[in-house]
């Protein structure tokens, strides 16, 4: 009896526990439906909060350690760098450093630190903080984790006085006016025993906002820095709310749980059209997407590495592959039109350097022509329709893609489909980002989907394709792109570096792009736009970079967040004197299209109900027998 009772008791406790759990759920479900939340948020007790839905994760908020886009983006608002990129032209402009100069041998750089900058705890920011930060990086390997690449060629760092910082380098370094290194307060960080440890919050900073709370995989909270030297931001807090699934972020935007989201997929972007309170931003991007074709990977001393299919060394084959890729279809189908059709290596956003093939050089998408070219080049078709390489082996190529990246997931089936038409079998191999990086660096691929973000100055992306940029002997080192090594290209590259006449330099850069186009070690297949959305019932807008047509989130600076303007608080500021104040033309007002969501809900609910019922009835009918009447 005792046993029975105690067991019943256990069952009772279980039920009680579940009731306890469900009760508040039910209460809260009825107490705070989503619309109420939206209202509550605007009149939140802590003042104006900008909640940003992001689907990229923060690795760590330690400025020495953070390397992910999300982490570094947040830290950009936390710490003022020496320089930043202007809102309008994205060229380096002074930030913590008011101005800077370099010696004639380009080896000594002197930065003049602003005198009116204070840390969020009120202490002044001096050159000593910068010196301490850089010196720490020079001394401590761990501190070099995130931004070590900038200082590998440095010789010394000194703060000659509180407002002057001198850096000596071993060789001339082009990135000295764009050092993306967070400068930390010495009085806080010098006390930390482990430089790689998670920082304490609130985190002392000197940017427009400072971090007050970080919940791993949930959110990061920032408060406005009232002492900010450019003037305090208009919002009081920013919450970066993490959604591992971007659809959830979109739902959250729809229900008013967040105010701004980036990035959106074209599907999500289209789905948001017609929402009356949502402003969409279709921003031109500085990114190009490419298909790498391994031309025979080698190290920078010419030793072959990797396991690329040797047949791809044949430029004719690469060109045929390039010709079999239909950028128009990709723009239409993969990006739903929110992209620009492929042309040259430099994205069309940078109008000066952008190039487009003309005349004979144009390789229009043409499967027949590609087939013909391959026939002529001697790639015969085998019995199953797959072409054979010169050794008589069927052409089976691996296509390395980033798993779960929208572009890769959607573009790769097309590439596979077209290449099959020209007799090349493709196996899609989605891998984690790390693995893709690794395997492309080591040349362990045949085809791979990749892409870069170009800068206003094309130097960096152009350098990617030089012989010198190939990796070290052990397969690591530089970040190679297509493993191109072309003497002519390298000569042109050197020439454009020393060319000070901009129009002449543009000509050289275009020649280089034409050369890349012919070599076909990479096929540009489109420049996708950055798609964003925000609640216009709560925010007037945000400064874009470049002004008017660019992105809000993930800028090369903090303009978008700094200038976030809540509803009714005047025009969106512009941090670039040359431009107007209104939002760019690409920002489309959401049309008053009829929302199909209600229909969807009804459809799904109905469908599920029907399925459950039908199935339930089927099973139930099968087991129907006379019910026993046992007592």
């Amino acid at each position: 009896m005792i046993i029975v009772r105690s067991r019943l008791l256990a069952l009772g406790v279980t039920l009680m526990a579940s009731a306890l759990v469900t009760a508040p759920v039910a209460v809260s479900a009825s107490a705070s439906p989503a619309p109420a939340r939206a209202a509550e948020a605007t009149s939140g007790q802590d003042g104006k909060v900008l909640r940003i839905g992001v689907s990229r994760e923060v690795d760590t908020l330690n400025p020495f350690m953070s390397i992910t886009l999300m982490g570094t983006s947040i830290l950009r608002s936390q710490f003022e760098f020496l320089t930043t990129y202007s809102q309008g032209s994205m060229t380096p402009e002074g930030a913590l450093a008011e101005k800077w100069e370099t010696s004639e041998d380009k080896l000594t750089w002197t930065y003049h630190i602003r005198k009116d900058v204070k840390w969020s705890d009120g202490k002044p920011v001096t050159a000593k903080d910068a010196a301490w930060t850089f010196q720490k990086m020079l001394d401590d390997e761990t501190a070099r984790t995130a931004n070590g690449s900038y200082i590998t060629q440095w010789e010394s760092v000194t703060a000659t006085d509180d407002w002057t910082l001198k850096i000596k380098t071993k060789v001339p370094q082009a990135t000295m006016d764009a050092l993306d290194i967070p400068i930390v307060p010495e009085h806080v960080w010098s006390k930390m025993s482990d430089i790689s440890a998670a920082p304490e919050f609130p985190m002392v900073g000197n940017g427009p906002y400072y971090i007050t709370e970080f919940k791993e995989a949930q959110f990061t909270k920032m408060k406005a820095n009232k002492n900010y030297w450019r003037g305090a931001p208009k919002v009081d807090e920013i919450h970066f709310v993490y959604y591992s699934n971007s659809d959830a972020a979109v739902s959250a935007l729809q229900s008013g749980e967040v105010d701004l989201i980036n990035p959106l997929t074209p599907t999500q972007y289209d789905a948001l059209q017609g929402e009356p309170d949502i402003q969409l931003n279709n921003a031109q991007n500085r990114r190009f997407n490419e298909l790498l074709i391994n031309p025979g990977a080698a190290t920078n001393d010419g030793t072959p590495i990797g396991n690329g299919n040797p047949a791809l060394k044949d430029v004719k084959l690469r060109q045929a592959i390039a010709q079999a890729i239909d950028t128009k279809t990709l723009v239409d189908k993969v990006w739903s039109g929110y992209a620009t059709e492929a042309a040259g290596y430099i994205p069309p956003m940078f109008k000066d350097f952008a190039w487009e093939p003309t005349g004979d050089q144009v390789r229009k998408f043409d499967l027949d022509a590609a087939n013909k070219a391959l026939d002529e080049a001697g790639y015969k078709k085998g019995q199953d329709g797959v072409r054979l390489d010169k050794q008589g082996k069927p052409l089976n190529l691996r296509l390395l893609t980033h798993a779960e990246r929208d572009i890769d997931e959607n573009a790769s089936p097309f590439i596979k489909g077209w290449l099959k038409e020209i007799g090349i079998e493709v196996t899609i191999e989605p891998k984690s980002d790390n693995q893709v990086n690794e395997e492309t660096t080591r040349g362990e691929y045949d085809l791979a989907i990749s892409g870069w973000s170009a800068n206003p100055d094309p130097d960096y992306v152009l350098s990617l394709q030089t012989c010198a940029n190939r990796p070290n002997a052990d397969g690591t080192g530089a970040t190679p792109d297509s493993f191109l090594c072309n003497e002519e290209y390298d000569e042109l590259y050197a020439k454009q570096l020393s060319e000070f006449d901009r129009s002449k330099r543009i000509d050289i850069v275009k020649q280089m792009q034409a050369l890349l186009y012919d070599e076909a070690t990479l096929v540009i297949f489109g420049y996708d736009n950055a798609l964003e959305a925000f609640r216009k019932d709560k925010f007037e807008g945000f400064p874009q970079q470049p002004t008017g047509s660019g992105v809000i989130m993930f800028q090369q600076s903090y303009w978008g967040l700094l200038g976030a303007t809540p509803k009714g608080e005047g025009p969106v500021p512009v941090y670039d004197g040359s431009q107007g104040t209104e939002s760019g033309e690409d920002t489309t007002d959401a049309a008053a299209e009829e929302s199909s969501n209600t229909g969807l809900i009804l459809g799904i609910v109905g469908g599920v109900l029907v399925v459950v019922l039908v199935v339930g009835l089927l099973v139930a009918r099968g087991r129907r027998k006379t019910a026993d009447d046992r007592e």
Partner: protein
Amino acid sequence: MSDILTPTEEALAEAPPPTRGGGALRYVLTKIGGGLVSFALVIVLGFLLFRALPGDVVATMFRGRPATPEMIANLKHQYGLDLPLWQQFVNYVGDLLRGDLGDSYVYRVPVWQKIEERFWPTVLLVGVSTLISVALGLWMGTRSGWRRGSRFDRISTGVALALWSTPTFWLGMLLLAATTGLFPTAGIVYSDTPPDFFSQALDIAHHMVLPTITMVAVTYAQYQLVMRSSLIEEMGADYLTTARAKGLRDDEVRRKHAVPNALLPTVTLVFLHLGFVIAGAISVETVFSWPGLGRLTYDALRVGDLPLLQGTFVVLAGAVIVMNVFADLLYRVLDPRVRAA
């Protein structure tokens, strides 16, 4: 299978019944020992699986950024990756015993810290949904098994089977689509919820609704079906006739005699099924962005973070093993027959 006697045991079954109480310590030690052996196997498996993964872990750590051979060698040395495999294994086991699961390559923090952060949300989700689904499953199973063939039995068994046949993540997706705007779609708590306990608890409960419903929907069916069939198995038992002959009411017969006996196989199943529930948690946490171990596993898988994967593997498997040892001990309390064995 306690009711099956092998021929040699049969000869012994006639021996005088053993005295009670003896061997309790032995039983506990045996079960804990068994758990430890299992855990040792998990550790070995964890090592073998994740060291066998393709890819140069050190290169992963640089994420494709430039690194000199010295830096690489340093890092390899730092992580002990330049040692022979057996030495690595010894170090790995040694570290593990000290509670050190290594550092996450991607997050650059100790794996243990990462797992600790994610442990409780999963315990909360899995715990609450297991409680609800066990209670629901047992109740429904008892009702439907006792009145086999009744309308309730037919419908509830049909629904349970239908829900059991659905992939967890799909059900979650449907719930997401069907309840747009009613419940939070992701996370565990809003960023702007006041920090006091009550508001936080309420908000967490609000966030838990959809994931919990999903988990319960796919797991309760198992318990219902097992409870049902185990009750049906017991239905023919003679002691129930005894109970009826004593003049007990039908529900008393069920409550006092049938259910306590039918509960026993179900208890084992509840714990054996924790592995299955964990699988559900991976899907559910992925769909609902629940910051738990399941999603950590998924994220680690996505970014190829080997130490983290290894850590979640060891911890998840270890947790299930611990729970099963616990189940064995609990079973001994519940079933007097096991005490004698």
